């Protein structure tokens, strides 16, 4: 029976190839996994000296953070402190301010935009808005930064901030339009597309019959959207917010260009003036100090900032992913 043995051999052979393919593809995946774990591990290891010298005060306030960074860059320890002395609070506060403001504004705007896109926009408008949002998502951050620094910052400096306001804080900071306000506005525009996309996708996936049921009960369109569509899409909105927060945390280039580049912690109790004061978020600090990585102390500090960002972004990514799993309970894939 030559033919039978032949077919047996062939099946055996191909079965083996199949296993081999599975193993090699799996091995590739493992290589990538190892690579990703290596990223986490090396950044943390490299960051350790900075954390161990400063302890938890690393995250706290204390002194001028720009002076501390300059001391490291020049390898001249500040009097009475080790070379690693670093208090990141102004940078963390700058990150929190820009991120939280931007995410809050974007949350409101993105929900309205998603409702408009999925429910109210007439088809021609929808066909226009759809590529518009994709364009906003695709514009490189350096272009946003360029427009921010050359157009928005100078407009805010000359037309929004009054001379009296500038004079009132002139002995502490110079208000030049590169500030929390400019950074927040552009950051909002940058994270908006992701939030609109995730929310609109989830809302479009809400079963039509649920909405029809509500409409048939005499509930008007707006309340149907609010109580049925938006309520069903809530996990997606949570996910969108978390993911947009991660994106805003990691934005470096645009913020380095428009946030003012000073490790300054605006006091919100100063009211509106605080919004016109410069900050420098964590990611922008890494970006601006990338030239000095040959200096050990500065390098460890920069990697420590990187580790903080990496860990927070990782936690946010994973919780964003987890919160989207709840959508699957409704049988919605968004």
């Amino acid at each position, binding site marked *: 029976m030559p033919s039978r043995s032949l077919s047996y051999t062939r099946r055996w052979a191909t079965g083996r190839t199949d296993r081999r393919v599975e193993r090699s593809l799996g091995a590739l995946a493992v290589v*990538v996994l190892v690579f990703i774990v290596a990223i986490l591990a090396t950044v943390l290891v*490299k960051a350790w000296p900075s954390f161990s010298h400063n302890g938890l005060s690393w995250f706290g306030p204390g002194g001028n953070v720009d002076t501390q960074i300059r001391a490291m860059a020049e390898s001249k320890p500040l009097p009475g402190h080790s070379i690693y002395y670093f208090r990141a609070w102004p940078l963390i506060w700058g990150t929190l301010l820009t991120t939280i403001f931007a995410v809050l504004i974007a949350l409101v705007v993105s929900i309205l935009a998603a409702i408009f896109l999925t429910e109210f926009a007439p*088809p021609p408008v*929808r066909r226009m808005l759809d590529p518009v*949002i994709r364009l906003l998502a695709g514009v490189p951050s350096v272009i946003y930064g360029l427009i921010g620094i050359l157009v928005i910052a100078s407009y805010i400096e000359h037309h929004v901030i009054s001379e009296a306001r500038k004079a009132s804080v002139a002995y502490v900071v110079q208000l030049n339009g590169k500030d929390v306000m400019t950074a927040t506005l552009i950051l909002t*525009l940058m994270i908006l597309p*992701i939030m609109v996309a995730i929310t609109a996708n989830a809302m479009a996936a809400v079963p039509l019959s649920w909405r029809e049921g509500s409409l048939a009960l005499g509930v008007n369109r707006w309340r149907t959207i609010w109580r049925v569509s938006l309520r069903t899409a809530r996990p997606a909105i949570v996910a969108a917010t978390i993911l947009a927060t991660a994106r805003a945390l990691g*934005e470096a280039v645009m913020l380095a260009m428009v946030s003012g580049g000073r490790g300054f912690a605006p006091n919100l109790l100063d009211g509106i003036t605080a919004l016109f004061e410069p900050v420098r978020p964590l990611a922008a600090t890494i970006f601006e100090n990338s030239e000095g990585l040959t200096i050990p102390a500065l390098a460890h500090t920069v990697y420590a900032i*990187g580790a903080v960002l990496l860990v927070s972004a990782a936690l946010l*990514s994973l919780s964003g992913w987890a919160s989207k799993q709840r959508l699957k309970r409704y049988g919605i894939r968004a």
Partner: protein
Amino acid sequence: MSTAQLASAPPSGSTIARAPRERTNSWPLVDRVGYWLCWTVGISLCLIALAIVLFMLIKGISYLRPSLLVRSPAPSQVQSQSGGFLDPIEGTLLVAGLGTVIAAPLGVAIAAWLSEYARPAWLARTVESALEIIAGAPSVVLALFGLLIFAQNFLGFLSQRAASGAVYGRSFFAAGAIMAVLALPLIVGATREGLAQLPDRLREASFALGRTRATTIRRVLLPAIRADIATGTVLGMGRIIGDTAIIRILLGAALTIQPVGHVPLIGALRGTGSTLTSYVYENSPAGEGNAPQKAYAAAFVLLLIVLFLNGIVTWLTNRGGQSERGGLSRAFRLIPYWSRLNGP
């Protein structure tokens, strides 16, 4: 009823039953305010995008000269002598090409494994969450990691060595490799999205014909999702082209391409240089050059490339027709992938 009428009628189930115009007269005031807020937001988003494009277009047309595209940057205080951005354009192509060449096959392979094999399950889940982490990792941090890795002694052949033997760690190789990490989640995401949409009968038919899983993937599944793979690759390319942080950290501040050694392509890859994004940054008031006209001109070229890639994505995803979900385009549904994996 003629066939022409049938063809012109909207396909059943493709549109949500929708009143021609929303009648809001009977709504409570709060609801009406919400309705008009939606309109305001929608229209202002369009206006903002239009303003950005028009502004860049006006600036681009007024500052872009053909000579800028063919001349190398030169160090000079005088605007007319500081050259153009030929090198940054070449650098952009170099990084985008290298990053895509690394990321595309790797991404498709991982997506195929995750979607079609995924055994053992715990390993697949770990790989998934690792990709999720990498998709959300800030690109500055990835760049920091790249600098650390490529400055290792055994990777010295990918960049250059100082006389003391220290490895520089900054090169197009390094930038391209880290850019591949940036593009990987996009390609994995788009490929998996495509694989998830293929009906199971396709796989079953192939198995019934005696094909193994591996052959099915290679001969049936991957050809069927070519458009999705291409979409992911183009999106990844767009992300690579738009990134500044990795370029600035892994290529340094030099504006011209500075090859190492004399082998044409390899030498350039081992050397440093710039891309359009880092050129824009260096020439903006934030950088050292401070030549806004040059920055606008380069940014305009960059925006044109992005718009072109956007157009390719639209073309690739619209070939299958609009998706039935509320009339949103398939390309729109991929936006979350632009910045992270976050797939099904």
